[in-house]
């Protein structure tokens, strides 16, 4: 029987028929990645909204964990609704933008609120969605609301996210702040690229982080999957039991490894980035690290999970 995250290597078994009910039956909840799992671009994966509805009716929790740092969770809530998913609220959605803001709040403000010194400013390489999450966490952004005269507060963190307006000048500016060893370097996620709907790829936060790390000589603290911080955020808010929770994702190097790192059983869905052949290649590899990228189970699409739930 498949272990839950500990012990031996996962075996990438197709989930279907009786196996589906055996695996889904005991589960209290599922964590879903979003891009490539629930939707691709502006199209919901066929059957995905129905799956979420059936999970709700079965009394199983559905939470969402995404490395995409472009959107605020409020925007994501609207996106779920627009694409036909009912009943998903912002509090169910854990994006790397939100979790990076929570992480910085903890580190710079001590997890409280308005401490006297304000905790310093954050230099954000990213769009308005990310910047909004950082502001909502009570932090001040470099370049906003600075005093007209006198010194501005020191920049205590550089946050690298998905930034389609990234430039050499911003890279140089980030490095300037990072010369202070007290200034944190944080990245929302490690993804090297993201798929576009026509099969092309667009560079991810990982490529921008590599530039900042090289220029500054520092290693970034990465908030997103496969690191476990976002799971800590989920546990703090909802208290999930890893042994009764399944992780569903499309990217072996982030979603499946995240599941493994958090002690969750994992299901790979084939509607996104990773191909079954890649999972099988990791399974056949001699490297110990490769074994951690093998999912316990796979499905062609999350719609295939529906028959595993009670009517």
């Amino acid at each position, binding site marked *: 029987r498949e272990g839950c995250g500990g012990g031996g290597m996962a075996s990438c078994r197709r989930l279907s028929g009786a196996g589906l009910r055996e695996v889904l039956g005991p589960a209290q909840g599922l964590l879903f990645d979003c891009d490539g799992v629930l939707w691709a671009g502006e199209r919901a994966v066929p059957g995905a909204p129905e799956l979420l509805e059936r999970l709700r009716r079965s009394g199983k929790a559905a939470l969402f964990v995404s490395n995409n740092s472009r959107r605020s969770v409020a925007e994501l809530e609207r996106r779920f609704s627009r694409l036909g998913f009912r009943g998903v609220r912002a509090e169910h959605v854990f994006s790397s933008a939100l979790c990076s803001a929570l992480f910085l709040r903890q580190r710079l403000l001590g997890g409280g609120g308005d401490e006297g010194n304000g905790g310093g400013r954050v230099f954000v390489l990213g769009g308005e969605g990310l910047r909004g999450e950082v502001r909502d966490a009570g932090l001040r952004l470099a370049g906003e609301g600075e005093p007209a005269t006198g010194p501005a507060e020191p920049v205590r963190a550089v946050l690298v996210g998905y*930034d*389609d*307006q*990234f*430039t*050499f*000048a911003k*890279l*140089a500016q980030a*490095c300037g702040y990072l010369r202070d060893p007290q200034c944190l370097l944080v990245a929302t996620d490690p993804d*090297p*690229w993201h798929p*576009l*709907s*026509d099969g*092309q*790829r*667009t*560079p*991810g936060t*990982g*490529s*921008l*982080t*590599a*530039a*900042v*790390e*090289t*220029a500054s*000589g520092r290693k970034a603290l990465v908030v997103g999957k496969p690191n476990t911080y976002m799971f800590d955020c989920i546990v703090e808010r909802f208290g999930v039991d890893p042994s009764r929770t399944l992780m569903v994702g499309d990217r072996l190097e982030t979603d499946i490894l995240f599941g493994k790192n958090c002690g969750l059983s994992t299901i790979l869905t084939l509607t996104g980035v990773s191909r079954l052949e890649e999972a099988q290649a990791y399974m056949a590899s001699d490297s110990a690290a490769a074994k951690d990228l093998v999912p316990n189970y796979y499905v062609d699409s999350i719609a295939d999970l529906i028959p595993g739930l009670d009517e």
Partner: protein
Amino acid sequence: AALPGPAPADWAQAPLDPAVRAVLVGFDEHFSYAKLCQALRYLLRGGSDCLLVGTNRDHRLPLEGGTGIPGTGCLVKAVETAAQREAFIVGKPNRYMFDCVVSEFHIDPARTIMVGDRLDTDILMGNSCGLTTLLTLTGVTTLDEVKGHQESNCPARQSLVPDYYVDSIADLLPALGD
């Protein structure tokens, strides 16, 4: 060529030049996400038929007064990470430039001295190519750094140690006859 629209989804629709067979990353103070996008598109379209070349891997370009700006190495790393492939690096410490010099000037490494201020480029290349290496202290490297490498047990760090050093290349003058 101008990009058709403000967002990456638009940029991915811009026509690609069918004749492009290589992406060359050099120092680019106008580097941007849009350019990184286009580089990635050419590399994905061409696969192994499109070269990825970097002029060098320097992290930092020192400026006057101890300041500096990001070096070409940062931009190379961004492209390599997005494309998930390694660039061919022309510059030091790789030996390609030395091979160019040798082929034009019939250099005998055993009778040639490499003079530089940077351990991980100048001195490493010189040592790898069988040259005698001479560090000058008028640039980025301090003697303490060299001693650190010398005293380490690590072979990679040992190859950063020059054969000789001078405070400045002017110190070579007395050795040269009239």
